[in-house]
């Protein structure tokens, strides 16, 4: 019976709304991860970059009383750290995965440290009077029965994220810089041979991924929640990387993959009301990630087997038609 309650709530418009809400902090860093991935530099530091922006945004908004200024400076900090990562990798020739992991670990500890310095609290920023970015009610849509709760009154960054899916598509496929980013990622030598500055292009790609991860972090602490909590990103930066690959390294695919992970996340939130140990429920988004990546890998092989089967049939049909000659 409680299961019935859950089922009914999943099939509601409010649930769709919550999927969109929780997909946003996956989609934003995923779009950033997409850009750097296409440039041939895997940014595993998305997680740490999100944390940095999330904390800085909260702190700045609390001290200045301006949420937008908090957002701006938070994103800028994330971008600067992403440039630092680029410097480690592109100038100092450090391995990008190891440098990225180092940034994640440093960010996790560093944000807690700064939080403690400012609030004497190692858990959350609840003592700070931080601000959030506004929610937006879409004029006509807002009053509609089903579509309203689904699509209206989301945080402004949710709409920004949707817009960015389109803008990044235009950027990657229709602008010179975007095309150069893709060229550098696919064949850096060839791109360099026509005068494209490979290192600069990768710098820009990593910086942009920092900006997007930063927006994701701001969304976490100034929209999704109204404060900073230690390690509040909870692996979203890594799930975002999974979304990049699951989405076939294309903007729209990445958006759909992020929605899928958002669904898993929202489901886990919803199932919290059931009498199941919460640890099981909390595993859902991560288990879904592993599952999705496995399915993605298998589907390539399955397609090959299917083609083989069809070929086999054609061959047999041919043998039968020619009487086994």
């Amino acid at each position: 019976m409680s299961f019935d309650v859950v089922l009914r709530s999943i099939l509601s418009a409010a649930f769709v709304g919550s999927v969109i809400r929780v997909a946003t902090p996956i989609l934003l860093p995923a779009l950033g991860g997409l850009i750097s991935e296409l440039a041939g530099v895997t940014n595993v530091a998305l997680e740490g970059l999100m944390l940095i922006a999330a904390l800085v945004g909260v702190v700045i908004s609390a001290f200045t009383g301006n949420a937008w200024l908090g957002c701006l400076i938070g994103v800028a900090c994330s971008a600067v750290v992403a440039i630092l990562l680029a410097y480690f990798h592109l100038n100092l020739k450090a391995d990008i995965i190891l440098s990225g992991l180092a940034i994640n670990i440093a960010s996790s500890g560093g944000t807690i440290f700064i939080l403690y310095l400012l609030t004497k609290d190692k858990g959350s920023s609840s003592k700070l009077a931080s601000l959030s970015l506004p929610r937006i009610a879409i004029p006509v849509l807002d009053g509609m029965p089903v579509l309203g709760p689904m699509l209206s009154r989301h945080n402004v960054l949710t709409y920004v994220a949707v817009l960015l899916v389109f803008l990044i598509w235009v950027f990657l496929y229709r602008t010179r810089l975007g095309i150069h980013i893709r060229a550098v990622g696919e064949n850096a030598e060839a791109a360099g041979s026509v005068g494209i500055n490979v290192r600069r292009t990768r710098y820009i790609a990593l910086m942009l991924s920092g900006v997007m991860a930063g927006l994701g972090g701001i969304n976490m602490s100034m929209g999704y929640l109204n404060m900073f909590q230690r390690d509040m990103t909870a692996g979203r930066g890594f799930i975002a990387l999974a979304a990049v690959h699951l989405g076939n390294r294309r903007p729209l695919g990445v958006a759909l993959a992020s929605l899928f992970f958002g669904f898993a996340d929202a489901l886990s939130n919803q199932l919290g009301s059931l009498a199941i140990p919460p640890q099981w429920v909390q595993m859902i988004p991560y288990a879904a990630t592993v599952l999705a990546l496995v399915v993605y890998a298998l589907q390539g092989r399955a397609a090959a087997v299917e083609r083989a089967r069809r070929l086999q049939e054609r061959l047999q049909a041919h043998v039968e038609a020619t009487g086994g000659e």
Partner: protein
Amino acid sequence: MSSLIEMRQISKLYPNGVLANDRVDFSVERGEIHALVGENGAGKTTLMKILYGMEAPTEGEIWLRGQRVHIRSPIDAIRRGIGMVHQNFMLIPSFTVAQNIVLGREPLDRGLVNYTEALRITEQLSKEYGLKVEADATIDSIPVGMRQRVEILKALHWGAEILILDEPTAVLTPQETRELFTAIRKLTERGKTVIFITHKLREVKEISDRVTVMRNGRVMGTLKTAEASETQIARMMVGREVFMVVDKPPVQRGGVVLQVRDLTHIAETGHVRLRNISFNVYAGEILGVAGVEGNGQTELVEVLAGLRPATFGTAMVDGQSLLNHTPRKVRELGVSHIPEDRLTYGVALDANVAENTVVDRYYRPPFTRNGFLSVGFIMEFGNGLIRQFSIMAPDASVPVRALSGGNMQKVVVAREFSSQPRLLIAAQPTRGIDVGATEFVHQQLIQKRSEGCAILLVSADLNEVMSLSDRIVVMYNGAIVGVFPDAQKVTEEELGAYMLGLKKQDPAEMEAYL
């Protein structure tokens, strides 16, 4: 009047002590086709990399159009009107032909890239120079010959007056080569200058106006092609007479050793690489596999050698299946394999010669006793092979990395031939090695054939296939499209037509000869 390009007393000493160019003088006249020939390692590519700004010369001067220049980078070279088409193409596989041609200089329309304009530019260039391309197709979907034309068009789009082509025919069929030559002639008619790197003498004779021969980093001379004979050029290349024809006794065909039936391989990507391949190889014969690279030859060899799984079909050696086993099991069935990628699969670069000669048998006595390697015996064995196969190495304890390409290949050949194989699979056995080593490998193959070994020879070098094989099959798009029971009676043109997929034999008719 001064030459278009003049390279004076160019020397290039690499940090590892190799003197790749030794006081080289090289000049090119405007509008000529200048062939640059020499064996591998003679310094041709280094010289051209210096001209193209990829390497800085240790000493020497470059004069372009009568002025001394310092070419600091490829971009610098391109700005001065020098373009180079490399052996490994500098193209973005997922981009279209037009996108590749305008890459780096994309036409813009209100800030966004104007793809329609890119298409127009491509088509105009293509028409102007008679180089046919599909402007809207992605690079990974077009054949190698067209990719090469894209590279040439790209260089022309950048305003190249001088085109350096680095072994452009290595990847082409005879027909494609002919088309390329026609295009090159058209380019020179329009005042362009072409430098053509090759080691195929027939091509030198056919296309070039002048030829410069290099050996051991030095220029041996520059000749007017019309006044030089192939033998003369060959002598300058290697410093001695070369036998251009392989001498071999008539075939003594024995029983079936390798029997392949309906072999099909589908890659993990889903591409069908081998379609229903069937053939036999008999004891004492060499079966040559001809084909443009990338038509399934590599996959065929790797499936037979146990490096890839077969999707279906059978392959038996002396009646025992060799499919889907580990390479060790395959070798224990009496199969030897000279892999096409010598550096990855042929040798372990940092292991010494002795270790490399026993990697397929180290675990058996007498190489291993009581669970320990018999190091002394292995070293003795390696030294024995060095003598037997005239490997230029002081002794078997030197790492293979220290040897030249030709001698590395001799190490591979020594190992594979000394295991008394029933079936020998030789993939590109002479690729990238000099004339002397090539000759040696050819003689060894003939020797094995006389001993009754069954040999499957896969080579992109049509001459090699034609001169060594007793029978030839042609692969196209993963299938056998032609079989020639007498390799002596087939012409290069005939093979070329099959290699390009223009001709195809009826499967039922082929069956008797496979």
